[in-house]
C-alpha cells in the first residue's frame, strides 16, 4: 500500500509532499523552531552576562536609540493615526445608529492603550528597525566584520547585541506613547466629524481609561521591544551565504518578530487584564 501511495502520480496542482517527506518536513520544522528558541535564549543569556560583566557603552546605546527612534517614528505615527481614524469610523457609525456615542472615546482609548498602540508600534518597529538591525548585522557577518570584532577581542554580543536590544526595549515604550496619542487624535478627529463632540469623546475617555491601561501597554511594549531586538540580532548573526543570505535573514527577522509579537500578545492580554480594575 505504501509503495502504491508512493508511486501514485500527483494530481495537477497537488503540492502536498508524500507521507515520508511530510514527516521529514515536520521534523525539520520542529528542529528549526527549537534551534530558534535555543539560539534566542542563549543570546539573551549572553547579553545579560555581558551587561553584568562589562556594563553598557552609553555612546553605542544612544546611537542605537537615535537610529531606532528616527527610523520608526514616522511610520508608527502614520499607521496608528490612520488606524485610530478607521477604528473611530466604524465605532461611531454603530454608536450613532444605536445611540451609545458616550462610549466611543472610552472604547477607542481602552483599545488603543491596551492593544493597538503597543502592537502596531511593535509591528512597525519590527518592519523598520528590526529589519535594519538584521540586515546590518547580517552584512557584517558575510563581510567578516563580525570575525574582525572577535579578532580584536571585542565581543559581538557586547558591541552589537546589547546596545540594539536595549535601544529597542527603551524606545518602543516611548514610541508607543506617541502611537497612542496619534491614534487617539486620529480617532477623535474622525469621531468628531461623524457626530461625536470632542467634549463627549474626552469625557468618555476619562471615565473608562485608567493609568493601569497605559502601564499595561508599556509592559507589552517593553516585552515586544526585547523580542524585536533579540530576534533581529539572532537572525543577523546566523546569516550565511552572501547577499542572498542577508535578504533571507532580514525577511525571517520581520516574519519571526511579527509572529512572536502576536503570540506573546495573546498571553500578555490574558495575564495583564487580570490586573485591570474597571468601574
Amino acid at each position, binding site marked *: 500500500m505504501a509503495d502504491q501511495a508512493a508511486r501514485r502520480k500527483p494530481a495537477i496542482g497537488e503540492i502536498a509532499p508524500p507521507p515520508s517527506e511530510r514527516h521529514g518536513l515536520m521534523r525539520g520544522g520542529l528542529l528549526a523552531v527549537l534551534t530558534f528558541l535555543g539560539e534566542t535564549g542563549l543570546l539573551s543569556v549572553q547579553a545579560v552576562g555581558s551587561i553584568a560583566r562589562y556594563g553598557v557603552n552609553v555612546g553605542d546605546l544612544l546611537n542605537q536609540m537615535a537610529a531606532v527612534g528616527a527610523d520608526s517614528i514616522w511610520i508608527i505615527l502614520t499607521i496608528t493615526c490612520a488606524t485610530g481614524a478607521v477604528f473611530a469610523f466604524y465605532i461611531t457609525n454603530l454608536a450613532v445608529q444605536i445611540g451609545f456615542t458616550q462610549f466611543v472615546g472610552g472604547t477607542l482609548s481602552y483599545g488603543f492603550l491596551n492593544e493597538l498602540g503597543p502592537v502596531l508600534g511593535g509591528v512597525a518597529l519590527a518592519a523598520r528597525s528590526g529589519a535594519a538591525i538584521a540586515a546590518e548585522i547580517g552584512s557584517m557577518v558575510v563581510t567578516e566584520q563580525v570575525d574582525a570584532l572577535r*579578532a580584536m577581542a571585542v565581543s559581538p554580543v557586547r558591541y552589537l547585541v546589547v546596545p540594539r536590544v536595549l535601544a529597542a526595549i527603551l524606545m518602543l515604550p516611548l514610541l508607543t506613547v506617541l502611537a497612542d496619542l496619534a491614534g487617539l487624535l486620529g480617532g477623535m478627529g474622525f469621531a468628531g466629524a461623524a457626530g461625536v463632540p470632542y467634549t463627549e469623546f474626552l469625557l468618555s475617555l476619562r471615565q473608562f481609561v485608567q493609568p493601569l491601561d497605559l502601564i499595561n501597554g508599556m509592559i507589552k511594549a517593553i516585552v515586544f521591544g526585547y523580542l524585536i531586538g533579540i530576534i533581529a540580532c539572532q537572525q543577523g548573526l546566523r546569516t550565511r551565504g552572501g547577499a542572498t543570505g542577508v535578504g533571507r535573514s532580514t525577511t525571517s527577522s520581520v516574519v519571526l518578530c511579527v509572529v512572536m509579537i502576536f503570540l506573546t500578545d495573546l498571553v500578555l492580554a490574558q495575564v495583564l487584564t487580570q490586573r485591570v480594575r474597571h468601574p
Partner: protein
Amino acid sequence: MSAITVRNLVYEVSQKRILDDIHLEIAHGEIVSIMGQSGSGKTTLLKLMTGLLKPTSGHILIDDQDITGLSEADLDAVRLKMGLVFQYAALFDSLNVYDNILFGVVRHKRLSRKELDAIVRDRLDQVDLEGIEKRYPAELSGGMQKRVGLARALAMKPSIVFYDEPTSGLDPITVNTIDELIMDTRRREEVTSVVVSHHLPSIFRISDKVAMLHEGKIIIYDTPEKVQASADPIVQTFIHPERNEKEENSPHEGAQAERQRPETLPR
C-alpha cells in the same frame, strides 16, 4: 619557545574532514606562508590559529599557551597579542579610517586624544596612506582597504600578525607594496607573520618558511628554496602549472603525466 605550535590538529564540518593531523612550529619573528589550492583549508587553518574556529581535536599553542580549550572571554586576552588582516579587509563600513584603525585600541587601552592621533598617524604613515583619516571604506580602492586593514591590525602592537590572502585581486604594483609592508612590519616590529596565500612570487619572496596544504594535510614545510626544489609531484604541479600544461599538450609525455598525476590536481 615557539610563537605558534600546532599539534595533531583536526577540523571537521558535518563529518567531512577539512584539516587532517596538522603539525606546524613557527618561531618568533619568522614569516611563514601557507600555500595551497583554493579550498585546501588555508583560511580555515588561519581561523583556527586565531581562535575564530574551534578544532575538532588537537592543540594550538600561542607562546606556549594552549588556546583550544579557552572560553571566548579567555581567548580575548590571547587575541590582544594578535593582529588579523582579512582577505577583503573587513573594515567597518559605518566608521571612517581613523575610527577603524583605533577600534581595538580605544576598547582596550586608556589613551589621550594626542596619543590616539599619533597611533593613527604612525600606522597610516607605515602603510603609506597619509591624510585619509576622514575617508570611509567605501571611498577607498581594494588595495587601500587592505593597507588600512593592516594599519588596524598593527594599531594594537601585536606580536603575531596573520594575513589572509593579502595580495589576492591586486595589481602587480600593489602586490609589491603589500609584500614590502609585510617584510617592513617584521623588521620594524619584530612580529611573527603567518601569511595565507596562493600568490607564489610573493610567497617565495617574503617567507622564511613555506607550508603547502593539500587535501587538508601539510605535505611539505620547509624553506622556500627547498620547497621549490622538492621532487614531490603535487608540489611541483602547484608551483609550475605551466610545465604540466606543456606535458599534457605533448602526446607521448602528456599520456605519461596523466598516468602519474593524482586525480585531485588542477587540470
